[in-house]
């Protein structure tokens, strides 16, 4: 690290040269304390009020006072700002300057001060957009790192909550912190995560998913082995179960690791409603998952290979609707599926004001007109519609996107093999899922391998799990939630 020289002009020249005399770096020189004091800040990142009302005013009012020999020490103790640090090298200077701190440079001293003056560059805490709940806290993470940490910390006022900060990205210098509760978490897991994070070598971390992708192992798999959430309460619940959360600067999404496949079907709301009602909803979610995965392929199987598997009356009705459709059923299905995916994707990208036009075209033109024109059969529209609706019941986009590939695999297997194809594809998917591990924990736990103690939040949730027990897979110590029961 290059130390700062005593000559302030030299430093200023260095700054000007490194930043290419950029117009956003403001350098203000004023005469004070019988010498020159330079105030340097990066204008877009700074709060003007702090600079004007505290820093400049302080210097203006005290510029005659020269009793103190060590000017840096004097300013540091007298300047009314909550965070002032001494800097003696170029690296820290640039980092602080470009983070929005104001640098106070005194001519003739090989140290400078960095004063907190960062502007709040976010839109404040907004309700969650992607993970809606009916009951439970509404707030979501913001782009502001400190706010995000605060949102978790205000939920866990526990001195055992550890925040280990890393700065990643050679160019982006992004703060990444690893959160866990020290007396619950598995220390080996923490060590593993810390090691992996410290080994990251990349120029910029733009989003939290960068970190997640870089530290997890299953890059070739469509299903995700980490959970990205924008809800601080989800992070809190997972921390309490001995998991590790990663919060990344400038990202609305926090990462939770490790994660099990079944947990994509759980929501934080599961903890806020009565368990009986939650379990009902969970059954619906599993049914929806199965529907969205296999219904198009089962329909194709029974209409092209296994006619014997449907009741005669239904067969007649299917046959009647198929009459006149020019394409094979598989083409019909792929056509509708791709249409739906296009519709979904364009609906995602289109400005909100155009959304209604899109839905009219999508629903009426593509649905109704295609049937009337005889391009697709009505039953196929129904099949794709139920598939599409069911596919959106889980809020995790990671799972939703993963299912899409498997749906196609199921379809192709079925188109060639009939119902046998459904079973083969299913087998393939189970093999794939059971071969996955999320930070050493089998993805299909607690079912494969079967962990009996953890069935209280597997398929269903029980009151015991909700109030008394932690997730034994990840919580290695202090597994009881209430102090009343023995440790």
């Amino acid at each position, binding site marked *: 690290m290059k130390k700062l020289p005593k000559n302030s002009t030299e430093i200023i020249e260095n700054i000007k040269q490194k930043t290419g005399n950029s117009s956003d770096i403001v350098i203000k020189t004023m005469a004070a304390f019988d010498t020159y004091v330079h105030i340097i800040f990066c204008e877009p990142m700074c709060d003007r009020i702090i600079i004007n009302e505290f820093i400049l005013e302080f210097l203006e009012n005290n510029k005659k006072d020269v009793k103190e020999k060590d000017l840096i020490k004097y300013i540091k103790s007298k300047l009314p700002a909550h965070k002032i640090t001494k800097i003696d090298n170029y690296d820290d200077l640039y980092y602080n300057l470009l983070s929005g701190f104001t640098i106070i440079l005194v001519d003739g001293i090989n140290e400078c001060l960095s004063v907190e003056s960062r502007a709040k560059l976010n839109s404040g805490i907004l309700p969650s957009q992607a993970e809606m709940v009916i009951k439970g806290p509404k707030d979501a993470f913001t782009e502001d790192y400190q706010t995000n940490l605060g949102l978790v910390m205000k939920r866990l006022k526990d001195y055992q909550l550890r925040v280990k900060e890393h700065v990643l990205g050679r160019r982006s210098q992004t703060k990444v912190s690893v959160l866990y509760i020290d007396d619950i978490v598995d220390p080996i897991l923490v060590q593993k995560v810390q090691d992996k994070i410290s080994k990251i070598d990349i120029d910029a971390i733009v989003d939290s998913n960068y970190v997640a992708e870089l530290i997890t192992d299953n890059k070739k798999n469509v299903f995700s082995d980490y959970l990205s959430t924008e809800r601080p309460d989800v992070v809190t619940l997972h921390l309490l179960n001995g998991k590790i959360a990663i919060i990344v600067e400038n990202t609305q999404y926090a990462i939770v690791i490790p994660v099990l496949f079944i947990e994509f079907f759980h929501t934080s709301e599961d903890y806020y409603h009565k368990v009986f009602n939650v379990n009902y909803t969970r059954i619906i979610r599993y049914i929806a998952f199965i529907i969205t995965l296999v219904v198009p392929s089962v329909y194709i199987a029974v209409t092209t290979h296994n006619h*014997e598997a449907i009741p*005669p009356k239904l067969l*007649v009705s299917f*046959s*009647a609707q198929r009459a*006149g459709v020019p394409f094979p059923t598989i083409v019909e299905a792929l056509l509708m599926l791709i249409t739906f995916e296009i519709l979904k994707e364009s609906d995602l990208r289109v400005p909100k004001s155009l959304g209604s036009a899109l839905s009219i075209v999508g629903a009426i033109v593509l649905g109704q007109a295609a049937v009337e024109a005889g391009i697709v059969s009505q039953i196929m529209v129904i099949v794709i519609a139920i598939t599409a609706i069911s596919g959106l019941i889980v809020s995790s986009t990671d799972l939703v996107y993963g299912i899409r590939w498997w749906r196609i695999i199921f379809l192709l297997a079925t188109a060639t093999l009939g119902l046998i194809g459904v079973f*083969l594809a299913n087998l393939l998917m189970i093999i794939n899922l059971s071969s996955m591990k999320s930070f050493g924990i089998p993805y299909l736990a607690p079912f494969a391998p079967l962990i009996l103690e953890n069935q209280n939040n597997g398929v269903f949730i029980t009151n015991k799990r909700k109030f008394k027990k932690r997730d034994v897979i990840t919580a290695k110590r202090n597994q009881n939630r209430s102090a009343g029961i023995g440790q």
Partner: protein
Amino acid sequence: MKILKILIVLVFSIFMTGCWQYIELNDIAIVTAVGIDKEGKEYHLSVQIVNAKKQTKDYSAAEESLVTVYDAKGKTLGEALNKISLESPFELYFGHIDMVVIGEATARLGIREYIDFLIRDRDVRKNYSLVVAKEKKAFDVLQILTPLETLPTINLINIIKTAQETSGYTSYRSFEDVLNCLYAKGKHPVVSVVEIIGDVEEGKKGDNIYETIPKTRLIAKYVGVFKGDKLVGFLKDKAALGLNILRKRVNNSVISFPCNDQDDYGSVKMDAPKVSFKTKLKNNQPSAEIKIEFTATLTDYNCAINLKKSENIKKIEKMIDKEIKTIIEETMKETQKTYKTDVLGFGEYLYQNDYKNWGKIEKKWDQLFSNMPYKIEVKSKINNTGSTTNPVRQGGT
């Protein structure tokens, strides 16, 4: 290497399942019923195909028949089937047959030769019903259009099923049941019977279903009795009801009983009965015991006996017992004396419970059965007199 292993598994699983019958739904003709007749030395095969297009909204008013019947003759049924495919635009699909009809004359000659054809096709499931067309050809039955249910075959099957449970005058038999009886020892099969009422030619016309009382109808009224694979006759009314009671096929059957000599009647709705019969061999002479127990609900009562007294209910129960007894006796008389065929399974009971002695009499069982003495014990219980007790004729309540 790993990929190779996966490929091997996949390839084998594809080739070893034998599931390559890809055919689109609109390229198959769904056969709902098959008719088999024999004319001289040739088989006359007819198939009834659903006109699926007719089931859609756009075509429901179109001037097309609900079903189409194709027929052909051949030295074997397979040959006849081949000839049918010359006519049909789609491949015939036999996976959802609901009914196989056999003409009476053909059934009397024996059905074994057709059964082979029906078992061999692996698409065909074995739970369709086997029906004999009384006095007509199977080909005629397939052509009759019927109202209410859109498909004539499903209509007929529903008639038979409902009739078996409520009136008990016919009996629904699936192909599987018939097969079981045919291969069982000491038991002969029975089948459902369909009768065409009215003119056959009128029934083939679409107009038939536009009338409030169709000119030609299909009714299910009899039970066909077989001896081995040959049809020997029909059980009618009470004899058929008795058969259904003994075979425990009734539920909610209405039994009327006389309560005095002046033609006053009451009736009860019979719940599913508990039936047990035992056959015993003594000196190679069989004898049987039949026990029937059931509960019943009074549905209709026009007798003078006061129902408010519990001993009178007992009296009524006695009357019902007597009536049931006559019904069973009727069945026994028909099967023992008229047709000499054991369709009730008295022989099967022996075969299962007294195997050693069964061997000695197996050959002459039909003869022994026709002279077999039997005892009937009926125990009925009225557990509900309906919403009123005494007959309305006497002022009710």
